[in-house]
């Protein structure tokens, strides 16, 4: 259980001894074992989506006995006469709006909290930190009452408005941390050159914040895509459902008779997230390592 130091690397470059090689084999075997366990559920849903209904639940082997594409055909049919693409579109709209809101609101809020001096700043930052650990359930009921008073229940407004107001404490904190790593001399130089705070923010900070913007956008997109509780509480008409709500309804109504269709639909709903992950993998892992993002 030795931790990475320079030493093993040097040894590795020399002629490998028998013991070294044996260790390496054991290491790879252990990692592969973990890999198999971790990937089994993903692999299972992949193969379940092309199996006959009768073959899905009774067969532990990940290799299907026969392959059918009917499941995907019935998945694309959607639910209650509304095609699947409609639910994808609903999800996409919510996620895209959330990303725009987070980037716009968190960057200005974090700039003020992390870079400017004004009375009340410390107290406001303390509120941000406190909401990081605060269970959101405690605000759920009054928020619902407020939104129904505003007559916006059954629209996506309640799902995205918080994102536009910088209420996502986690991302505000992440942006503030990131801003602290940017040298103050930059602002000072710009100030001497006559730039105002708006200029500094738009021409200097925003471009430098790019890594934070990318990381927060990816996470926001994925979290909004997966979010279930918000749509569960606020969306009641099936035409407005995003994918998680569709899956839940489908699971309650159709899954008994059409298990394969359910699995195909599940797989399709996960595809965008996995694609996002594959494309932005480096950014995601760096982001989580430096800011302690919860996945």
């Amino acid at each position, binding site marked *: 259980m030795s931790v990475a130091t320079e030493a093993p690397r040097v040894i590795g470059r020399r002629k490998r001894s028998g013991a070294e090689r044996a260790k390496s084999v054991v290491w790879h075997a252990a990692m592969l074992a973990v890999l198999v366990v971790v990937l089994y559920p993903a692999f299972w849903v992949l193969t379940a989506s092309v199996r006959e209904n009768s073959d899905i639940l009774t067969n532990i082997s990940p290799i299907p006995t026969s392959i059918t594409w009917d499941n995907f055909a019935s998945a694309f049919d959607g639910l209650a006469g509304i095609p699947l693409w409609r639910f994808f579109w609903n999800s996409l709209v919510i996620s895209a709006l959330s990303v725009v809101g987070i980037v716009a609101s968190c960057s200005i809020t974090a700039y003020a909290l992390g870079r400017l001096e004004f009375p009340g700043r410390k107290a406001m930052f303390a509120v941000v930190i406190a909401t990081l650990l605060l269970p959101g359930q405690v605000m759920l009921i009054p928020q619902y009452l407020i939104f129904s008073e505003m007559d916006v229940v059954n629209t996506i407004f309640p799902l995205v408005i918080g994102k536009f107001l910088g209420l996502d404490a986690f991302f505000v904190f992440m942006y503030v941390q990131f801003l602290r790593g940017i040298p103050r001399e930059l602002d000072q130089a710009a100030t001497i050159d006559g730039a105002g705070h708006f200029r500094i923010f738009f021409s200097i900070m925003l471009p430098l914040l790019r890594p934070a913007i990318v990381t927060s956008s990816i996470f926001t997109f994925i979290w909004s895509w997966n979010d*279930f509780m918000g749509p569960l509480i606020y969306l009641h008409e099936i035409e407005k459902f995003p994918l998680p709500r569709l*899956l839940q309804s489908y699971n309650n109504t159709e899954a008994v008779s059409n298990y394969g269709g359910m699995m195909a639909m599940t797989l399709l709903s996960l595809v965008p997230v996995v694609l996002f992950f594959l494309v932005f993998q480096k950014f995601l892992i760096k982001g989580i390592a430096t800011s302690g993002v919860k996945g």
Partner: protein
Amino acid sequence: MSASPSTTAPPAAEGAEAPTVRGGRGAAKRRTPISRRGERLVGYTFMTPWIIGSLVFTVGPMLWSLYLSFTDYHLILGGDFIGFANYTAMFEDPMFARAVKVTLLYVLLAVPLKLVASLAVAILLTQSRRGIGFYRAAFYMPSLIAMSVGIAIVWKALFAGGGPQDQFMSWFGWEGGGFIGNPSVSILMLVLLSVWTFGAPMVIFMAGLLQVPGELHEAAQVDGAGKWHRFVHITIPMLSPVIFFNVLMETVHAFQLFGPAFIIGGTAGGPAWSTLFYTVRIYALAFVDLRMGYASAWAWMLVLAVGVVTLIMFRAAKNLVYYAGEDNK
């Protein structure tokens, strides 16, 4: 909250603020393009969305729900102030005992298992070997999808009667059937779902492990310390801020598990209340039974519990967490 939770972020520049050009120093006749007042104005302008949002959607609702928790407010029937009646009723409510039991059991099982797994794999992955990037990415991937409805549905299938888990375990003489129908083990489905996401804390552990100075290990090795000794006396103390951060965040989040529990157990937390998570019960009270006053009291109880746990952890951290470069008495 004095301890900075992010251990690997760039050091905060707060204390080291160089004397700036802004304001003051009038005698020096230096041009100060932005006055203090200007900075204030910009500050408040930038904070406006957050201030409005907080008042209307977070701080306001918190106070309102505190008030609601002292009423018997029902969404349709309305309600009156009833003092502490909700709080006393809670302790006689069998559902409260069930929800607390399920949630605590989950926290106590899921958090340690997930963190031990993530630390063990992180240690293995910080050895310099081939394929680390691939393994790290593959192990991290479940963290992004685990809380989705899709995976909850997959989980239901994996642990159904006659499903993969049932078949696999029956090879070893298991007769309990699928976890999903067996109240004495059904919570393990959610524990395993949580352990499946060990990749997220793992990545944070890896970042922490790479910052442990190699010289410490070399010096100890020269002094004849074995691997286990070095792990306990060097790796663990140097890693303790990261461990603290992960324990805190995982615990706080575990108390609030909702989506997968809701899909797997429904609002009743079936079978036989064995997956009746606290937040699921809050949802059922508020949005199925519409008893929003009583549900608010439940929610405030959760805030209290998480608050107490957080405080205890910060207290314990004072003695247990080692911050390099600080004088720990």
